[in-house]
C-alpha cells in the first residue's frame, strides 16, 4: 500500500488498519470480518495477472453453476447485442470480456453479503449495484477514469456500511436516523461511535479482498475526492455515481450525500440527463441478472 496517497498525514496506516479490523471483529457476532467467497477472490487475482486468459476465467466460473448461468445470461442480454446467442461459457466470456466477467463474478458473490433478510440490507445492495453501474458509465462518458476499473469501487463504495449493518444493525439505524434528523453529518457521527467512518472501513475491506490500491483509495475518499491524491478522478466518479444512484431512486438515506455532480466532470445538463436515463436502464438490466 502506498501510504502517501491513502492515509491522512501523520496517521500510522498499520495502526488505523488494525483498529478498523479489530473493532469490526469485536462487534461481529462471529468475531470475523465479512469475506467474499473464494471464487470472487480467484477472479480478482486473475484480473491482476497479466497472463490471464479466457480458459482460466472459464475454469473459475464453472466452479459455481449459478455463476455460469449468470454469465451466459449477461452475454445474451440486449445490452451486449450478440447476433446469435452464446451457448458455451467461453463464448460468453469472450463477449463480455475478461475484466467485465470479473466484475460480474465479484458482484454475484458480493450479493450474498446483503442476504440478511433486512430491508435495509436489500436497499443497500440495490444502491451498491446502481452506483457500480453508474460509476462505469460516468467514467466512460467523462473520460475521467478507466471505465473497466470503475465498477468494483462503485459496488463497494459503501461496503463499510454493510460491515456496520452486519455487526449491529440497530446502531447503524440510530446513526441513519440522526443523519436524517440533521443531528450531525454521517462521517462525524460514525467517527464518534466506531472511531472511523464507513468509507475508511470499506476501503480496508476492499483491500483485504484484493481490489487495486487506486480502487481502495477511491472508496476511502468517495465523499472527499479532492483528498484522494492519485485516485482523485476515480473518487470523483464514484462520488458522482453515488448521487446518480439517488437520482434514479436507489438511495439509502433521506438526504443524498453531497455530490460533485456530473457537471463538475465535464458533462453538461443535457448529457447528464441522458446519461442518468441510460444508467437507470442499465441498472435494471444488471438487477435482472444479479438479483
Amino acid at each position, binding site marked *: 500500500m502506498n501510504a502517501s496517497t491513502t492515509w491522512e498525514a501523520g496517521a500510522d496506516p498499520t495502526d488505523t488498519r488494525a483498529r478498523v479490523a479489530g473493532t469490526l471483529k469485536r*462487534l461481529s457476532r462471529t468475531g470475523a470480518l465479512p469475506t467474499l467467497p473464494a471464487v470472487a477472490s480467484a477472479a480478482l487475482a486473475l484480473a491482476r495477472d497479466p497472463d490471464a486468459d479466457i480458459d482460466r476465467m472459464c475454469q473459475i466460473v464453472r466452479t459455481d453453476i449459478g455463476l455460469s448461468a449468470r454469465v451466459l445470461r449477461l452475454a445474451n442480454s440486449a445490452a451486449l447485442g450478440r447476433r446469435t446467442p452464446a451457448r458455451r461459457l467461453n463464448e460468453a466470456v469472450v463477449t463480455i470480456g475478461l475484466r467485465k466477467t470479473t466484475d460480474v463474478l465479484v458482484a454475484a458473490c458480493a450479493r450474498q453479503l446483503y442476504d440478511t433478510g433486512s430491508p435495509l440490507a436489500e436497499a443497500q445492495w440495490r444502491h451498491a449495484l446502481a452506483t457500480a453501474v453508474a460509476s462505469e458509465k460516468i467514467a466512460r462518458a467523462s473520460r475521467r477514469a478507466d471505465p473497466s476499473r470503475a465498477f468494483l469501487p462503485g459496488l463497494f463504495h459503501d461496503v463499510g456500511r454493510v460491515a456496520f449493518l452486519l455487526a*449491529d444493525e*440497530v446502531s447503524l439505524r440510530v*446513526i441513519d436516523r*440522526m443523519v436524517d434528523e440533521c443531528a450531525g453529518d454521517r462521517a462525524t*457521527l460514525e467517527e*464518534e461511535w*466506531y472511531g472511523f467512518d464507513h468509507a475508511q472501513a470499506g476501503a480496508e475491506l476492499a483491500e483485504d479482498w484484493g481490489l487495486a490500491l487506486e480502487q481502495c483509495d477511491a472508496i476511502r475518499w468517495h465523499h472527499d475526492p479532492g483528498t484522494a491524491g492519485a485516485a482523485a478522478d476515480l473518487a470523483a466518479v464514484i462520488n458522482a455515481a453515488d448521487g446518480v444512484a439517488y437520482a434514479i431512486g436507489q438511495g439509502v438515506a433521506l438526504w443524498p450525500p453531497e455530490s460533485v455532480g456530473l457537471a463538475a466532470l465535464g458533462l453538461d445538463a443535457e448529457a447528464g440527463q441522458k446519461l442518468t436515463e441510460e444508467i437507470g436502464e442499465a441498472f435494471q438490466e444488471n438487477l435482472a441478472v444479479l438479483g
Partner: protein
Amino acid sequence: MKTVLTIDDSKVVRTMVGRALQTFGVRVLEAQHGGEGLTLARADRPDLILLDVTMPVMDGRQTLAEIRGDASIHDVPVIMLTAESGKDIVIEIARLGVTGYIVKPFKQETFEKEVAKVLGSPEAAAEGAVDPTAVLVVDDSEKVLDVARAALAHNMKVLTALSGAEALETYRNSRPGVVVVDLAMPDMDGFATLAELRKLGRSGYVALSVRGDDAAQEKARKAGYHGVVGKPFREGELLDHVLTAASSVVAPEDLVKCCLGDEDGCPVFAIPPARVLSRLLPEFAKRLRSLAEDGNDRLIIDVARLEELSSDHVTSLARMLAEASGVGLRTAICTTNAGVIATLRELAEAGEARWADTRGAARACL
C-alpha cells in the same frame, strides 16, 4: 425507578447508551461534559454514572476525581467509557476507583454485562421501578395522616403507614415514587426508616419535622432526604415538597400526571414549584396536545396555593397559556390571591384566560 447519568461529549454515544439502557427500564440523564455531569450528579444522586474518559472542558479523570472528592456523591458507582485506543488510560483511572469500563463502540451484551454489575440484571432493574404516581406518608399520628391525605389526594395515590415497620411492608408491596416520613416516631425513627427504605429501592424522600428544629432538619438533609417540611404544614407546602422530591426520581412524563387532575370532566393542572414546573414544560405541552386531540376544549390552571409568584413561575405560566391557546383550549386561572392576579393579569388577558376563586367556579365559567 433507578437513575443513570451518562456524561459524554458525543451525542451519538449518549444516544447509543440511552438505547442500550432501555432494557434496564431506568431513567437516563445526559450531560455533555464533566462540569454539567457534576451538577446533575449532585442534584439527582444517580445510581450509576457512565463517564467518558476523553472530553473537552473537564475530562473523565478530572470529573471522576471531583466525584470521589464530594461527600454527597463519592460512593456513586462509576463505569468509564473509553475508545479502543484509550484502554491504556484505564489502568490509570482504575486507581481512582471505578466499577468497570466499557470500550466504545460496544455490543449490547457487553454493555449489559458490565452495567448489570451495578444495577442487577435488566429484568431485576425493571422490577425495581417505582410507581411514580404513588406517595407513602409515614407518621404515628392519624391526624397528621388525614391532613397529608387531604393535601395530596388530588394529585397522587396516597398510601399511609403508622410506623417505620409498616412503611417497609407497604413499600415492598407498592413501591411509591415518594415517601414522606416523620422523623420523630417511636421504635423506628425517621432516620432508621430511611436507611431501611433505601435498601429496598430508590424513591424521593421528604422528612416531617417539628417546625423550627433546624438541627433535625439539617441532619435529615445530610441523611439523604430530598426535602424537609415543618409541622404543622400548609397543604400546598407538603405537595410542593413531594413533587420536588418526585422530580429527582420520576421521569417528567410521569411527574406531569401528578400535576394533572380533573374537576367534573374539566382537566386541571395544579401548578408545582417553579423548579419542577420548568422541567415539566415540554411534557406539559405534549399533554395539552393530547387533551385537545381527545376532544377537550377547556383547561383550569390552579395556582390557588401560591402566595407569591417567582419570575420562573411567571415565565413558565406565560408559555403554558400560549401552549394552551395554541391548541385551542379555553383557560381559567384559579386563585384568590390579589397579588398573583395583579402579576398575571397582563398574561391572562393576552391568552384570553378567565379568573375564578375555586376550581368549581373555574369550570362553570368555561
